[in-house]
């Protein structure tokens, strides 16, 4: 999936995560993560963000994530929503269709 613009999803409320995602020149995911639970869950959050992007085919992006203690499912939702907004795409493949 190709990103065409900068986009944001999520809020700075407790239990949420705000994801800002923008197209990047260089290949790879450049992640700037701030979290209220950095010590305990920083690695886990980073892994979920990267897996989610890989899962929807985003290979290069600049991502800023401000986390307020979001659960993994919330992180996946916000990353997904931000990426589709950044790609100006509505072609969500919610599930692999059988």
């Amino acid at each position, binding site marked *: 999936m190709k990103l065409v613009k900068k986009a944001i999803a999520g809020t700075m409320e407790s239990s949420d995560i705000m994801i800002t995602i923008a197209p990047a020149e260089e290949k790879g995911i450049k992640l700037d993560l701030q979290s209220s639970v950095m010590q305990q869950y920083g690695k886990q959050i980073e892994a979920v963000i990267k897996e989610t992007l890989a899962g929807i085919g985003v290979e290069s992006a600049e991502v800023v994530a401000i986390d307020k203690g979001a659960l993994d499912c919330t992180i996946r*939702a916000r990353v997904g929503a931000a990426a589709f907004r950044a790609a100006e795409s509505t072609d969500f493949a919610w599930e692999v269709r059988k």
Partner: protein
Amino acid sequence: MEKRYTKERLRRSMMFVPGNNPGMIADSRIYNADSIMFDLEDSVSYTEKDTARFLVYNALKTLNFGKKEIVVRINDLASGLGIKDLEAIVPAGVHVVRLPKTDSAQDVIDCEREIERIEKEHGIPVGSTGMMAAIESANGVLNAREIAHASDRLIGIALGAEDYVTDLKTTRADGTELLFARSMILNGARSAGIAALDTVYSDVNNEEGFIAECTLIKKLGFDGKSVINPRQIAPLHKCLVPGEKDLRKAYAIMDAIAEANAKGSGVASLNGKMIDKPVVIRAQRLIALAEADKAAAEEE
């Protein structure tokens, strides 16, 4: 085929949870609402419809809601958003789709057609997903019976009072303004053998008013009610669950029936009064409700 929903179950409380609030979604299971309804419609602003859809989709896929019934209120199909909502939540495993602003049986049929298409596309057995219709207009109220009969998937029909009173050119007051709609919906639901669910009570801090409304809908015969705050669940259940005295009487009736049957007598009586069939049915319902309440309380 294994359905995701059961028609017959306890539906005293259906708790509204805004679909774009991750904290409230995560916490929704800790309250003992019988059903949880994630809302993609009125509680989500137009610009956040996509993010809420992502959030509810991921919550349905990931979080453990125990044995609770999981309902999602979609946007109406005419807005163009409803179908997108269905595309996400049907594959994600929603138990019951709540269709808002249902004016006619055709609205239900149209929605069911989309659900069926999505089920087929995803290899989900057709008919797995339940539906309920919220009636929020004069037209809908007058069509309540047809709406209730419009699909086999329907578990119930509900009143959405805010839009309805506006359509009626009145406002929410003491309940008189809703009596006709409630009666229509109740009779429509009963004629189809499905649940009748009452509207929300929005003044969260007025516990007295809330209890009065719960008492009224119990008298009318409703199965339950939508709640907008977890604090409303306990008083609602307290109203709807039979009290000790009623329950003792119900058990006494059932004992008398059992005794009569054992004697081979066709006629049972309690305290000199003959027990006829409606009395037995009501006693059975009371006991079933009390037992379901106990089971719900013990549920993880």
